[in-house]
């Protein structure tokens, strides 16, 4: 009796299996590391050489909303349209034969969930923590009076020379803070240098011209220059129109700045910020006018142009370091030392990574890759 019940149960299971999912293997999972706004639908049709599949999502009113029609019998589809976390969604996959007859239909219900931590970014988090701890450690170390060696950056050492030259020649100093807006860190780095330069210009009584490409940069640059003149004790020497807006347009701005260089012949030009194709047009026009030129950007593709056409170039990190370097404040210099520690760690990790890759071990590469 027991044997016949067992055989019946086994047969029933086999019968049920053969009815549901004979061809279709459907699976719906929550998309990992997201805010719960999508679900991943995976399907695979076996024992079927050709056919079409239609994937649909079942709405609250029972209607089917078709998401995709394809002849791809093994595929992953990500549904990110109007998916809310914590809500059940039913997906129906219909398999049709070559003549359009339905062969099988399968359904799967799943719920999406918002994650509290993106596990793909563990490596990034580790880097951020290491660098932050390193930089903060050196800031406090510098505050406690420890002597820190910072290498000389000739482009910044030359600032006095440039301002002095402009004063002697009775010509203005031109400062261009790049062509991007305040949401770019290079522009902010450029503006922090402008503060130091404006202070020196006020002390030397040199004229400063700051044409800008963005309205937000205009108001910030005006405040910075005004404060610098106040700090130098020469508020009367500040000219509000020395910082002015030209245009948002890239080549319109270049034409405007080139016009200033050709007409006013500044004795010193500073191009510090984010630049694109206009970098060489500006730098070469400045070179032709005979100005002493200092440029700095973190755009690797524009650096060769500045190196070729300018007297001094701040390469990448030097632009960001400029403000701290010029301030000479111990806690600011400490942060530069922290960056150097980060570089040393990078070199070590890169070397280990190269050795491991050559040895056929990809663990480190995979761990550090952002997916």
């Amino acid at each position, binding site marked *: 009796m027991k044997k016949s019940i067992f055989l019946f149960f086994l047969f029933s299971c086999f019968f049920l299996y053969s009815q549901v999912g004979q061809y279709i293997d459907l699976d719906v999972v929550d998309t990992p590391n997201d805010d719960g706004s999508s679900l991943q639908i995976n399907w695979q049709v076996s024992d079927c050489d050709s056919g079409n599949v239609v994937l649909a999502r079942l709405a609250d009113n029972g209607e089917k909303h078709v998401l995709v029609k394809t002849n791809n019998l093994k595929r992953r589809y990500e549904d990110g349209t109007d998916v809310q976390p914590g809500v059940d969604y039913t997906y129906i996959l219909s398999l049709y034969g070559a003549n359009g007859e339905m062969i099988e239909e399968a359904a799967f219900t799943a719920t999406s969930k918002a994650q509290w931590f993106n596990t793909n970014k563990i490596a990034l*988090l580790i880097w951020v923590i290491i660098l932050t701890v390193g930089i903060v450690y050196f800031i406090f170390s510098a505050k406690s009076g420890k002597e820190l060696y910072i290498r000389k950056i000739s482009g910044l050492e030359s600032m006095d020379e440039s301002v002095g030259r402009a004063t002697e020649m009775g010509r203005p100093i031109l400062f261009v803070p790049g062509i991007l807006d305040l*949401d770019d860190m290079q522009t902010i780095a450029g503006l922090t240098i402008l503060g130091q330069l404006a202070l020196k210009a006020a002390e030397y009584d040199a004229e400063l011209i700051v044409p800008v490409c963005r309205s937000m940069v205009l108001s910030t640059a005006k405040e*910075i220059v005004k404060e610098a003149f106040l700090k130098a004790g020469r508020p009367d020497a500040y000219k509000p129109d020395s910082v002015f807006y030209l245009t948002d*347009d890239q080549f319109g701005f270049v034409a405007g700045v080139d016009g200033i260089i050709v007409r006013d012949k500044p004795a010193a030009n500073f191009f510090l910020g984010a630049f694109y194709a206009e970098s060489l047009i500006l730098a070469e026009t400045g070179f032709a006018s005979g100005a002493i030129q200092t440029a700095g950007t973190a755009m*690797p593709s524009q650096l060769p142009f500045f190196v070729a056409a300018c007297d001094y170039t701040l390469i990448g990190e030097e632009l*960001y370091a400029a403000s701290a370097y010029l301030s000479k404040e111990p806690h600011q210099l400490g942060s530069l030392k922290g960056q150097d520690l980060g570089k040393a760690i990078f070199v070590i990790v890169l070397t280990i990574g190269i050795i491991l890759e050559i040895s056929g071990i990809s663990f480190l590469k995979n761990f550090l890759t952002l997916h």
Partner: protein
Amino acid sequence: MKRKLPLIITFCVGIIIIISEFIPHKPFGQISGELEIWFLIISGFAILLGQLSLLKVNFLKIKFKQKNWPFFVVTLVSFAIMVTVGIFWGTESNHGILGNGEGVASLIGSKPFDYLFNNVYQHLSATMFSLLAFFIASAAYRAFIARTVESNLLLIAAVLVMLGNTSLGSFLTGWLPQSLSFLHLPNIAEFIMKYPNTAGQRAIMIGAGLGLIGSSLRIILGIERSYLGGE
């Protein structure tokens, strides 16, 4: 308080942005996008400041008949024309206060704003961009003068890359057997661009990335305050 409040806001926003990079859950996942929208809204208002500055600076130069003042007249007239035609007849996808400008468009082929944009502005912009070709030539001439070991290396690399990217390069080394294909100029040029050039660029990018993190931390922690207009 005038100093402290911006520093507190900077600190809070900076920390939230860093945290939101690692937390996709609401509300952190949306914060970055929301703040970008705020930035765009503020930028929209700031445009007015820019236009006012442009008008004021150029008007004063004309008023006091400063050197080269006719140039500033051209700027103001161009500005006024573009604003006027834009407001009256609109742009390609927007209506103006006088309608869609069908009458004017039938005469000149498109709306006045688009006509001026396509037939004046675009050409002037392309002219400025094309100047780059001449500036590259003059800068390259100076950069490639063989004076030191470094400039000699630069010159050799530049000649190899330039030749490798022309048909002359293929012609000069095309006769070499397959076993010496690594000496083909196009292959040498590709090697230089792919390995030493990429390595150099990445080194700069890593340095710049670290500098960016350092600068950001200085600003978030309130150590760097010069962007606020003072120490």
